[in-house]
């Protein structure tokens, strides 16, 4: 599809519109609750300080990976709600493996990443297998697998846990110093900060996502299945195989979600490991329209809101949960807005084609008239 100004405008219209709607709805809620509307927006929309900027970038890296995992499924109408469970299982597996330090330095990191992808793929593969073999909706099975993952990991954590003295936080063995990924130094103004080293992993995953989907036969089959399953079947796509493969790919990427945290911040998997990233990924994929760059933008918006909410309680006296409401409204309105924009686009295109053909016809008739005259 060509990038015309119209396309870009239509593409940007929906997310911008939905963010505006979310702001209006939130303001109404605040007014009803008699909370200070002005203070809240002043806090949420103020320019973040360098520390927060880095935090936003870091959370965007993680959210982006999660969004890509979800988007792989979305592109073929497969709703992998289970990224949440997949990344937990994967992070636990990778942390346990990496913590043993069986392999030296970088090799340990790389193999741990592979372990994470394998664990995520396996967990997602269960849902894929159930769908293909037994027709179980992947929505139901992945939700169930999320719950199972939570308790399974909690159970296994007790087996391998290293509880620090005087703390009830249990976690896996810390990664050896040599197997940690150093941050990338960034200078903001005067300050020297570091962003997750695994940023490059997110960029690589984003590139592969774009390349595989748009440039390969496999990607074509996947998109065709998403566009019309019946047409894909008639064209020779083996849909069951595609379901299983894409579920596994989605799970493998989901397995990477926790890796920037593991290798760049926590160095172990514990009961305090950041939860809920899988669900945030669904929202980011929706907002970013499954587009490799759109999701990066959406991940930044999400990270921005998350981080800016921290000061809400202190500066505006409003619970930081408010940001959850804003995010929820954004997702809801973005889904509606995309559908509206999609329909408008189809109608516009039909009109343009009809108009172009009518003009062409009129021209040929005119030419013919000129020739006969």
């Amino acid at each position, binding site marked *: *599809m*060509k990038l015309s100004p119209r396309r870009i405008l239509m593409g940007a219209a929906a997310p911008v519109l939905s963010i505006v709607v979310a702001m209006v709805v939130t303001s109404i809620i605040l007014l009803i609750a008699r909370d200070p509307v002005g203070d809240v927006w002043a806090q949420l929309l103020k320019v973040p300080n360098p520390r927060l900027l880095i935090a936003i970038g870091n959370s965007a890296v993680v959210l982006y990976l999660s969004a890509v995992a979800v988007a792989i499924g979305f592109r073929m109408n497969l709703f992998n709600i289970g990224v949440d469970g997949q990344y937990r299982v994967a992070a636990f597996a990778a942390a346990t493996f990496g913590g043993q330090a069986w392999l030296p330095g970088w090799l340990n990191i790389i193999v741990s990443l592979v372990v994470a992808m394998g664990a995520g793929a396996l967990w997602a593969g269960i849902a894929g297998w159930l769908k293909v073999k037994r027709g179980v909706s992947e929505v139901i099975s992945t939700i169930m697998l999320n719950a199972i993952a939570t308790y399974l990991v909690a159970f296994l954590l007790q087996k391998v846990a290293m509880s620090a003295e005087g703390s009830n936080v249990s976690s896996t063995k810390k990664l050896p110093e040599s197997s940690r990924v150093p941050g990338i130094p960034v200078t903001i103004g005067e300050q020297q900060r570091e962003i997750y080293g695994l940023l490059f992993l997110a960029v690589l995953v984003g590139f592969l996502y774009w390349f595989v989907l*748009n*440039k*390969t*036969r*496999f*990607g*074509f*089959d996947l*998109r*065709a299945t998403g*566009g*019309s399953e*019946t*047409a894909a*079947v*008639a*064209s*020779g*796509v*083996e849909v069951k195989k595609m379901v299983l493969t894409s579920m596994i790919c989605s799970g493998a990427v989901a397995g990477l979600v926790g890796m920037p945290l593991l290798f760049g911040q926590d160095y172990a998997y514990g009961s305090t490991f950041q939860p809920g990233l899988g669900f945030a990924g669904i929202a980011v994929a929706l907002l970013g329209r499954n587009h490799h760059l759109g999701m990066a933008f959406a991940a930044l918006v999400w990270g921005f809101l998350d981080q800016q909410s921290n000061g809400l309680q202190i500066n505006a006296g409003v619970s930081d949960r408010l940001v959850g409401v804003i995010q929820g409204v954004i997702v809801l309105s973005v889904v509606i807005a995309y559908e509206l924009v999609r329909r408008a686009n*189809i*109608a516009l*295109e*039909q*009109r*343009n*084609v*009809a*108009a*172009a*053909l*009518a003009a*062409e016809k009129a021209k040929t008739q005119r030419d013919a008239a000129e020739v006969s005259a």
Partner: protein
Amino acid sequence: MELHGITKRFPGVVANKDIELKVRRGTVHALVGENGAGKSTLMKILYGVQQPDEGTITVNGHAVALKTPTDAIDAGIGMVFQHFMLADNLTVLENVVLGAEKLHGIGDRARAKIRSISKEYGLDVDPDDLVEVLGVGARQRVEILKVLYRGAKILILDEPTAVLVPQEVAELFDNLRELKAEGLTVMFISHKLDEVLSVADDITVIRRGTTVATADPKTTTARQLAELMVGSALPNPSTEESTVTDKAVLTIDAVDLDGGVGQRKVLNNVSLTIHAGEIVGIAGVEGNGQAELVEVIMGMREPTSGRIWLDDKDISDWEVREIREAGVGYIPEDRHRHGLLLEAPLWENVILGHQTQAPNVKGQLIDAKAAKADTEAIVHDFDVRTPSITVTAGSLSGGNQQKLIIGRELRHQPRVLIAAHPTRGVDVGAQASIWAIIKKARREGMAVLLISADLEELVGLSDTLRVILRGGLSAPFDPDVVTREELGAAMTGADGHGHGEQEDTK
């Protein structure tokens, strides 16, 4: 009923323009026009589904505003749709009262009312029959009854004969004459001219969205009417001299396909051979196994038993993709569901179905540049009217979508072409060019399986004709000598042959 100056615009197109229509009470009035002439839009306006931008509608001298279907029913206008809207698992009574419970209740009063309507108009409908046991003709009569039950005085029938075989058409026309005799008005929409001439009292011709002429069926011939419809001389599907060779390309050998548990077989002992340069036509009432036969050949379904051979290779167990790669082209019955990605650009649609074949791919990668060049060539060679190859497939007209599909299939020089209803829903111009393309492919030695509901198309194009009924194939007919009545009899089983067993004796 009178329509005056009705105009309806859609973005970029005028669907109806200055429609003038006068329907006399107690007559059958036919509205004829080719596909896409604007009949459907006019009908939707009459039934209150869409509002006209300009113009007036008067019923019995009173101007009416039809904003919803309820308004239309209140004005005494009832619609019998081409596709029946009946719930199979309910009885006739339940179907009729559904949504009209307030009229005569849902019990004995309603039952008595249905009986009396049925008797009065000779519809022969029993209120306690289950709809699923009824044939197509009877279902249509239930639809008519439903409309009468709601008090309609003007009945609009949208292509009512499209789903009927000739004998059922005759019965329907008897019913229509009955309705007329009772003082009701019938508006009959069709593009089958012989039928129109036999049943209508008045005819209005619609072309390119506007009414161009009225005709008197007593003094008009089908040909004149057709030329009014098209606005020019007619295309003709008839083939030239035979190009049939004795080289069998596709052989179907005793294929069975089971239905669900306790259901009859969907395909029953189907055997069929198509030679190079031959077009084999399959006639039949829809839903007798045509779609399943195609799916079995294409590998989308596995036959329960029997083999399918392409040349001397057994392709029964192959996947769709292998079958396509081996040179079987496929024009699906429902191009929106099976043929196109409506929201993808034309050039991606050209890759579809050939995503493992040159020039679309290089190894595992899509070769967008070559595919686009190929699309340009198809658009040019097959006269696909489009401003560019990057517009979405959904924005083209039906005829142009179909030409794109046919072009993409023929571009890969298939040995066999499976064409299911290739000219359904396309305009006359596109129909003529599609027929020409199929004929050319036949001359070049392709083996063609043509499935169609259009008997004229089947008789005109086919070298051999078979009729499919309840999953079984009839003995071959010679299209040069077979009559419509013979085909109709075979299509309903009225010829006394249960198909499917005949292959054994051959």
